[in-house]
């Protein structure tokens, strides 16, 4: 798997209302890599993800996935949103099965894969529950299982834990890290939370707003054998503070 974003710019509107939201973004993501884009709101980080997903088209530059140009959404790029991530009228299992049945896979295969991926996210017991009967964290786990079930080459996560309580968010970060280690998935995470990015991603890009651009890149070389410990370890806290002050100096807003 090789995702290449080359010199992508994006502007919305026309004429006098033309607004440049992304300027000259270049990124590269390979199999098994976990990358994060961090920035304040308005830094265009979600737009980068929507461009990769094919939900928007770049104004300039190109995006290639395994040599093929991205022109429209497809199941090779699974996506998890922050809000409305599940279909409220479908059970957890039916949500996981949704993509598979859209692709017209056989009944037996759908049943088998649904059970497998619900099990992967630890929700085999919740198969028959409706989203409203699940906690926020469980809902996001189902959404991740649904995105994984169609076997995407890359998983796009758009602030997936942004709406969760702090404690649940921490356990979801541990869950995602564990999932990444077990399955070797490739992921691109969008977040405004520096701690989340440093905990999970091997490469962290810091984005600045007006227009959105990557201003700093960190390769995180921390020992991730114990996330709980890592969270409070000295090198981690120092790195976090360094990036936080960098972000503060960028747009003057508190993070």
């Amino acid at each position: 798997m090789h995702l290449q974003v080359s010199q992508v710019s994006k502007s919305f509107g026309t004429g006098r209302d033309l607004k440049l939201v992304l300027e000259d973004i270049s990124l590269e993501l390979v199999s098994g890599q976990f990358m994060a884009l961090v920035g304040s709101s308005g830094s265009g980080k979600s737009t980068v993800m929507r461009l990769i997903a094919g939900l928007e088209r770049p104004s300039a530059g190109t995006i290639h996935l395994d040599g093929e140009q991205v022109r429209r959404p497809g199941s090779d790029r699974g996506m998890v949103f922050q809000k409305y991530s599940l279909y409220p009228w479908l059970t957890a299992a039916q949500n996981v099965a949704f993509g598979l049945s859209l692709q017209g896979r056989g009944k037996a295969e759908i049943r088998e894969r649904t059970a497998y991926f619900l099990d992967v996210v630890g929700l085999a017991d919740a198969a028959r529950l409706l989203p409203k009967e699940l906690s926020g964290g469980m809902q996001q786990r189902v959404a991740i299982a649904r995105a994984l079930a169609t076997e995407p080459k890359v998983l796009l996560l758009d602030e997936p834990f942004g709406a969760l309580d702090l404690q649940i968010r921490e356990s979801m970060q541990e869950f995602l890290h564990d999932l990444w280690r077990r399955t070797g998935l490739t992921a691109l995470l969008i977040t405004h939370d520096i701690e989340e990015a440093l905990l999970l991603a091997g490469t962290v890009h810091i984005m600045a707003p007006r227009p959105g651009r990557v201003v700093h890149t960190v390769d995180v070389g921390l020992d991730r054998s114990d996330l709980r410990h890592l969270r409070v370890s000295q090198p981690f806290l120092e790195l976090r503070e360094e990036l936080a002050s960098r972000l503060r100096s960028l747009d003057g807003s508190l993070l």
Partner: protein
Amino acid sequence: MASPPTLRRLLSHPWVLGVLGILTVFLFWLLVTSIGVVDKLFLPSPAAVWEAGSSQFQRGILVNDAMASIRRVFLGFVISAGLALPIGIAMGTNRTICHLLEPLMALIRYMPAPAFIPLLIIYFGLEELPKVMLIFIGTFFFNALMIMDAVKFVPSELVETALTLGGRGLPILTRVVAPFIAPQVLDTYRINMASAWNLVIVAELVAANEGLGKRISLAQRFLRTDEIFVGLIVIGLIGLMIDLGFRFLMRRACSWAN
């Protein structure tokens, strides 16, 4: 004897309170008519209304009238609802269609449907067609515009999730948009059914051989206020039953939305 807390809980139950409200008005009616402060020609007693009702029922007029009115409402509303669904969805999903039709529909919506009656009589005579058309005109534009709104409020995330799972076009309409708007569509139908039911009575007041509205206008001619009351109460009861039917359907079919 029920202890005070149980009694209070019983009294605060919505059904009990609802019945209590109706019962109060009924008792007031009974009281006013029994002490004879109002001429019974103007306000007949509950007993007289019951008498007139059962007489109409025994002669088969009541069921016949009710069926005639229900048939017109059903026919007009099924056509209206059936056409409003695809057109409302098309307006909600396609910008061009929306810009083309919304101003037109918003304009016609504000023309009172009963004002079309003279025109409909000139065009279609005095048979069933003008009455069915009136119900169609009076409900179609509301149905279509309200369905359009429901479609516009489908969260983009739900559609985009389907796109990133490999979905396209029609399956997104049938498997994402349709289930999401189903509760609002049923509610739209429930609300607009009330105006359909109003309009059929108006149409029958103007011209008809049978129907609950026709019976009321005949009763007026002979100063039979008791029969007017029968008509009003039956109309109200049938309307309420349709409303409850829609609510029941919504609870059964869209339990996820409650």
